[in-house]
């Protein structure tokens, strides 16, 4: 059996508590959620519309470094790079569209996760910054149960849950 589910573009969000450290370093504790809907499945070479989701909930610890561009140029722009590690809970289900009695893939698993971050912040008011960043998030070794019809019972694959996202938000000093 060759089974593949394809995602449509999804959405998500994150909430974090951070700390300014000396020399432009930042440390963060972050909770995030990502939702990606399945729109097609390919089973033994035949592609059809599908429905379902792959959701990821994660708690991460991040370390960032801000380039001292604002101090060097006077522009209120603060580029940053960084990464983080933590635990991610992946939950997914892949069904026919419209939903019938078949569930082709199911997963729910906590796994170690890591992420890479890069973006910019810019000052908009004292103690307030708008942020835009790219995030690559990956959880390795998640187990899935698969079936060609009916309900999945047996573990069929162990794979990676990875995503790319563009995040925009607001950061406030406490």
């Amino acid at each position: 059996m060759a089974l593949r589910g394809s995602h449509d573009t999804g959405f998500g969000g994150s909430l974090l508590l951070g700390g300014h450290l000396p020399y432009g370093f930042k440390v963060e504790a972050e909770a995030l959620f990502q939702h990606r809907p399945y729109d097609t499945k390919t089973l033994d070479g035949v592609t059809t519309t599908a429905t379902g989701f792959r959701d990821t909930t994660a708690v991460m610890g991040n370390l960032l470094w801000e380039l001292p561009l604002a101090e060097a140029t006077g522009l209120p722009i603060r580029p940053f790079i960084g990464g983080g590690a933590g635990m991610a809970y992946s939950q997914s289900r892949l069904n026919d569209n419209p939903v019938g009695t078949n569930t082709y893939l199911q997963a729910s698993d906590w796994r170690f996760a890591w992420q890479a971050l890069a973006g910019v912040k810019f000052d908009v008011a004292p103690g307030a910054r708008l942020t835009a960043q790219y995030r690559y998030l990956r959880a390795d070794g998640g187990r899935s149960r698969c079936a060609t019809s009916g309900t999945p019972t047996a573990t069929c694959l162990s794979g990676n849950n990875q995503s790319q996202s563009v995040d925009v938000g607001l950061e406030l000093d406490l």
Partner: protein
Amino acid sequence: MRLSIASRGVALAGLFLASGLAAAIAQDDGYANLPYPGDNDTGLYVALRGSMVG
């Protein structure tokens, strides 16, 4: 709506350009020298972000 890798790259580049434009406007409005933690300062912050996920 499915976005290709190229489209996501263009979207990200747009975000950076928008950031730069907003920063330039902020500079004109006198935000260039807002107080910010220096090399030896510490402090806490919170952030809320929304994501487009591929």
